[in-house]
């Protein structure tokens, strides 16, 4: 089951610097949305606000039945986070735990499932990301791409209805990007989870996203179907950004 996400007029500032200037958008259940934009455009901050990793000043976040404002209780925030899987740019696996332990800790502790079930589930998700054979390794024995795939499996093991992916290939060597994107592509094609993807991989965004949002200086400049955004954007700022990015990319 996937859930609707509604972001309503979210504002966030760091001192005098307003990084989110009243952002609003919504994502339909099962939809895949890619957020693109330059570094410093506020896209990662936006994503972090959705599951309250970054506190914001005003506005509200709705995920399914949950509607949370900046002064939401810790209890509600935790309930929200359980529904949302978050994958970080730097993987953030726990180095003192094996791959399996990374996957079963949160489900056993928070969803109250027993170890046998948790392990079965972990095996299932590791198989999906193609890393079942690494189940008893420590993260430090894995390549960056493998670590990131484990991180995706760890997020999936909580059965989230929403998945937020924060520049998940930016810390990877170029030759490892493909294996991670392949996994995400498969998840996206199931349309069982609502996906919000912050990414610099334009080709990937064009392929998997149902819609693309372009952010710049803390505002949403433009939103539309990938074909439209990438080949015929309405806004001059979008055009300039894409020209700059795509000429480097050999798109």
């Amino acid at each position, binding site marked *: 089951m996937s859930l609707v996400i509604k972001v309503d007029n979210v504002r966030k500032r760091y001192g005098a610097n307003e990084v989110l200037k009243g952002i609003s958008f919504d994502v339909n259940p099962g939809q895949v949305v890619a957020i693109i934009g330059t570094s410093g455009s506020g896209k990662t901050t936006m994503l972090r606000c959705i*599951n309250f*990793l970054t506190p914001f000043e005003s506005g509200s976040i709705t995920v399914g039945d949950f509607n949370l404002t900046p002064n939401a209780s*810790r209890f509600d925030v*935790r*309930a929200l*986070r*359980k529904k*949302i899987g*978050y994958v*970080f*740019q*730097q*993987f*953030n*696996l*726990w*180095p*003192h735990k094996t791959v399996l332990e990374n996957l079963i*800790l*949160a489900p056993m*502790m*928070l969803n109250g499932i027993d170890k046998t079930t948790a392990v079965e589930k972990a095996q299932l998700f590791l198989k999906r990301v193609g890393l079942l054979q690494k189940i008893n390794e*420590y*993260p*430090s*024995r*894995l*390549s*960056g791409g*493998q*670590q990131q795939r484990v991180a995706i499996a*760890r*997020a999936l093991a*909580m059965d989230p209805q929403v998945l937020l992916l924060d520049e998940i290939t930016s*810390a*990877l*060597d170029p030759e490892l990007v493909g294996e991670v994107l392949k996994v995400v592509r498969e998840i996206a094609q199931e349309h069982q989870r609502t996906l919000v993807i912050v990414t610099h991989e334009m080709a990937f965004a064009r392929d998997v996203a149902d819609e693309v949002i372009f952010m710049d200086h803390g505002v949403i400049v433009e939103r539309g179907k990938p074909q439209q955004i990438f080949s015929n954007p309405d806004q001059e700022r979008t055009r300039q950004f894409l020209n700059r990015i795509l000429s480097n990319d050999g798109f």
Partner: protein
Amino acid sequence: MYQWDWRLISVYKFVFVQGALITIWLTVLAVILGTVLGTLIAFAKKSRNRIVSWLALGYIELFRAIPILVLLIWVFYVVPILLNWRISAFLASVLALSLNLSAFVAETVRAAIESIPSSQFESGLALGMSPQQVMFQIIIPQAVRNMVPNLMGLYISELKNSSLASVIAVNELLHRSNILISETYRPLEIYTAVAVVYLIMILPLVWVSRVVERHLARIDKPTFGMDYELSH
């Protein structure tokens, strides 16, 4: 030309053995008490309650600043006056040594916890864990690995510091040896023997700490997301 007389050492070896046993016992008690106390102080220092945090800071600075010898004498002579309780020299030594050690343990524990990147904390929170759950499941197990080498160093120093207890006549190695000197007038042989006995006690500890350190380094090289390529 000085005439060394080593037979003396073998005649009185029971003095060194008994002294060493008291030294070890004193150190073990001070290490246990100091570690428990220091860990509590470290968490007090990290408390969100400003007053608790300030008190912990004051405690750490106070007991790091006072020389152990001064603290030892102070505890031994002042506690009986303040609390109307004649504290034994041994207990006063345990107390003074552990108060001093706890301040250093507190700083070691705090630094080890703070050395774990906040991204480790976030990845737990993002899954829906409470800050306490993240602390006990994710942060502390990693921090313990970081603090073990430093703690081992502190414990080894503590064994040497315990010789200060001789000042208030605790029957540990140095004090027993001083008495022996006053009876035999052979300070050079006896102090040499004392040095050797300390060496015998400390070398195994150094060896253990090295083994532990190597073991910890082997089971996980923390990656914290960095791209250490081992697979190709």
